[in-house]
């Protein structure tokens, strides 16, 4: 899943989405039957964590999931073949439904994956043959789940994961085009590159080397769903999820609350026994070796407004929260620490970098901005990124000068451009050069903002003022996000606000945004083309991660930064608050379904807030 995000419309929203992301995964408590837990749920009552999300869950069919909130919730219910190690950094994949990491053929085309034999689907009425008892997961389940994505009649948003990657899979998709109804699609129709060698062995044959495939096999849309559930629930499957994950859906009051409860048939999976330096001191290894999940129930409220979210957190009704923009100064001191008042309440601050870069893109096919490099340089030089961060983000970010955020392998702080710094005097000179290139005075530049709220308007005014100072006239048009997206996709936006939140810890996820053939409506919205960059992308996208690959990534980034198809603005930094009764909290930028690792000191919570 690629996630594009416009910064403007989501100053607050993305903050709260962070809550969704973190909150959906939070948990606590000691598991029933754990070796050194504090007894069973029957002894001490169910352990429940409370969190919030700022957006509604749209549905829980992995095939259709494309938003952060739905992913956060559904990832507690489903499992993929692989998952991220909870504690280790840099981010590392470990088996989930798979028994081990894949065996890869020498040519890098064939992946053989052994499944663990103890993964069962959650008990559900769809398993009629067994009287509602969930059955064992087999390799065919994964093939079936992926074929559902390929079935064009299902209009899944996630076909891009497999598009052109697996032998014979595109042909299967072609076949589904000709089928009249999605129910008539023959899911037993063979696909050359997807083979269930036996019940517990899956073989994937690629069309060309694609080392990132393993990351995709940890991506929620590729989770296993049972055929029986689709047969039983049909189109309503999105409201009746059945997976193999640590939790199952207990209650879903649409638009209000979601409750997940422990899946009693979850396979034996243990809390990790090793992490990175400092984890032990931070208490993150206190539950090492205990059986997951550690808590019994996850209670997620849907709270879209800042004020009720913040008030509920302050009252201790939520265990974890982001910090709304307007409340930032009440919680955080100028030295970026938690205020004493908050510390006394047992609140703990966690700050971490997000894997995201935000920018204002130019449509490189536009005859004005696309063909005028001095103009793009001037527009970069005119932007004071530090002021931008102070004004609009309470300094919750760092200025971006290139494509990759710092946590992604291949990031190079030395990649820079003399034009991605704030220098209004040089900008004025570049405007003169731009006028010469243009052949006269520069026309008005139009910036498309995909939001009409007050923050977007403030941003628009700030950009217009910044450019006015160097002699560029900017007109800002405000519209809803879908309309703005449509303009970008149809190449009719001249300049627009955009960003990219990485789905996988691999630079390719970002670099594909600058690959010529991926132009609109593909992910390269800037319609940027540079033959040298394209050649580098073609090489790095099929390579295993290595120092040689990092060098190619660095070269490609430098080309992009020299060409400046956008105004790079920032990489976000998240500020998350939690109460100290919530244990085992470690931010994870890519992982979902982390609720199974979290723990809870229920006694401490009772003492503090009487709940």
């Amino acid at each position, binding site marked *: 899943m*690629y996630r*594009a995000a416009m910064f403007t419309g989501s100053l607050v929203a993305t903050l709260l989405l962070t809550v969704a992301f973190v909150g959906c995964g939070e948990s606590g408590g000691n598991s029933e039957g754990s070796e050194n837990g504090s007894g069973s749920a029957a002894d001490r009552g169910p352990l429940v964590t409370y969190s919030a999300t700022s957006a*509604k869950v*749209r*549905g829980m*069919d992995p095939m*259709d999931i*494309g938003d952060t909130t739905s992913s956060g919730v559904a990832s507690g219910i489903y499992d993929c073949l692989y998952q991220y190690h909870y504690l280790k950094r840099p981010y590392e994949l470990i088996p989930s439904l798979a028994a081990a990491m894949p065996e890869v053929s020498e040519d890098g085309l064939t992946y053989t994956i052994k499944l663990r034999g103890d993964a069962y689907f959650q008990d559900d009425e769809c398993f009629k043959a067994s009287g509602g008892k969930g059955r064992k997961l087999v390799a065919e389940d994964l093939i079936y789940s992926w074929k559902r994505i390929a079935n*064009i*009649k299902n*209009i899944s*948003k996630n*076909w*891009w994961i497999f*598009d052109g990657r697996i032998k014979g899979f595109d042909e299967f998709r072609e076949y589904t*085009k000709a089928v009249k109804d999605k129910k008539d699609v023959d899911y037993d129709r063979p696909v050359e590159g997807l083979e269930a060698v036996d019940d517990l062995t899956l073989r994937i044959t690629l069309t060309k080397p694609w080392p990132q495939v393993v990351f995709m096999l940890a991506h929620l849309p590729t989770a296993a769903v049972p055929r029986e559930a689709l047969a039983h629930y049909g*189109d*309503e499957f*999105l*409201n009746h999820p059945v997976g193999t994950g640590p939790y199952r859906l207990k209650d879903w*009051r*649409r*638009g*209000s*609350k979601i409750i997940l409860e422990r899946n009693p048939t979850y396979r034996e999976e243990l809390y990790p026994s090793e992490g990175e330096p400092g984890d032990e001191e931070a208490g993150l290894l206190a539950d090492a070796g205990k059986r997951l999940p550690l808590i019994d129930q996850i209670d997620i*409220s*849907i*709270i*879209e*407004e800042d*004020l*009720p979210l913040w*008030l*509920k957190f*302050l*009252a201790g*009704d939520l265990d974890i929260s982001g910090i709304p923009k307007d409340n930032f100064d009440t919680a955080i001191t100028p030295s970026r620490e938690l205020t004493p008042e908050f510390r006394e309440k047992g609140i703990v601050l966690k700050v971490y970098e997000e894997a995201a870069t935000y920018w204002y893109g130019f449509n490189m096919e536009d005859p004005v901005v696309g063909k005028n490099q001095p103009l793009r340089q001037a527009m970069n030089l005119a932007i004071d990124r530090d002021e931008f961060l102070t004004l609009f983000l309470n300094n919750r970010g760092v200025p971006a000068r290139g494509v990759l955020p710092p946590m992604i392998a291949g990031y190079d702080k030395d990649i820079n451009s003399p034009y991605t710094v704030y220098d209004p005097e040089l900008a004025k000179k570049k405007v003169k050069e731009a006028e010469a290139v243009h052949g006269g005075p520069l026309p008005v530049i139009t910036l498309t903002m995909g939001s009409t709220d007050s923050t977007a308007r403030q941003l628009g005014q700030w950009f217009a003022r910044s450019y006015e100072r160097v002699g560029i006239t900017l007109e800002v048009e405000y519209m*809803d*996000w*879908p*309309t703005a*997206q*449509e303009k970008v*996709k*149809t190449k009719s936006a001249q300049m627009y606000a955009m960003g990219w939140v990485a789905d996988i810890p691999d630079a390719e996820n970002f670099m594909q945004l600058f690959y010529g053939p991926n132009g609109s*409506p*593909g*992910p390269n919205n800037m319609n940027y083309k540079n033959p040298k960059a394209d050649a580098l992308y073609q090489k790095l996208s099929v390579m295993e991660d290595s120092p040689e690959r990092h060098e190619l990534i660095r070269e490609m980034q430098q080309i992009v930064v020299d060409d400046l198809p956008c105004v790079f603005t920032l990489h976000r930094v998240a500020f998350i608050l939690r109460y100290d009764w919530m244990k085992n909290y470690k931010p994870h930028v890519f992982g979902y379904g982390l609720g199974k690792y979290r723990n809870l000191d229920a006694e401490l919570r009772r003492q503090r807030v009487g709940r």
Partner: protein
Amino acid sequence: MLSYIVRRLLYTPLIVVGVLLVTFLLFRVVQGDVSSDIAGKNASPETIAEIRKEYGYDKPLIINTEAARERGVLAVFDSQFFHHFKSALTLDFGRSRSKQKISTLLMEGAIPSLSLTAPIFLGLLITSVSLSMLVALRRGGPFDTSVVVVCVMGMSLPILATILFGQYFLAHKLGWFPVFGYEPGLAGAKYFVLPALLGMLAGLGGDVRFYRTVMLDEIQSDYIRTARAKGQGTLRILYKHLLKNAMIPIISKVVLAIPFLFLGSLLLERFFGIPGLGYLMIEAIGARDSQVIMALTFIISILFVLGNLATDVCYALVDPRVSLN
């Protein structure tokens, strides 16, 4: 009266067609094709084409002459408008952009919305009518002046400020009400108290001002003077004579407001986490989910048409001078 009702009902299909045409023009013609938006950022052209097919964007707007030539004259109706028409009449609105069944969304949202708006509506009606009768009776006195001042202040206060005040002080600081939440059934009644009170508070100023004007017109009438001269008690004058004769404008305001109760209250629902239709509507607008917007617009329009008819019938019932012929 029966013939009048039948005649009005016969007009209804024409109004319905008009409503459908307007919503169609707004959301299909003006808004245009949103297939690529639905498909997401990385969609291939064939996925977009499939979505166009699924949502009917591949068909002509009003009439399908090409299909008529190929498949017979009836195929002329195989167009976007007639599919929209059919789905509305059969109340099968299809699925939203998130693939949820729209009829289910509407049914699920109507109860929370009504649970919030019905108490506000009834409480507001009873309070504002009673208060306006009293101030009309004491016109020009300190009580009347105070009420008018408070009403003007109430009308000047944005509902958002009222909500923020209530949520912060009454719920968070004083702890009198829950800050936020929703539970179905009676168990959830506690979550509705504060939003309902705030909704009433926000509407009270305008309503009292309106009803006060109505009551003042009536209170100077001969029949009130006669009743007073006969020595009838204040309550009897107010509720038997004044209220009955002031019913026409009250009915106009009340009956026409009923259809909109289903739409809920957008801000109250959002701030207090009540999953009603107001919430659904604003979400649909934000996401350009034209199927949901059209469904909601259609339902409200029909209710409005029926509300209009009910208003006319109520006129005749409460005032014998009104004839429906």
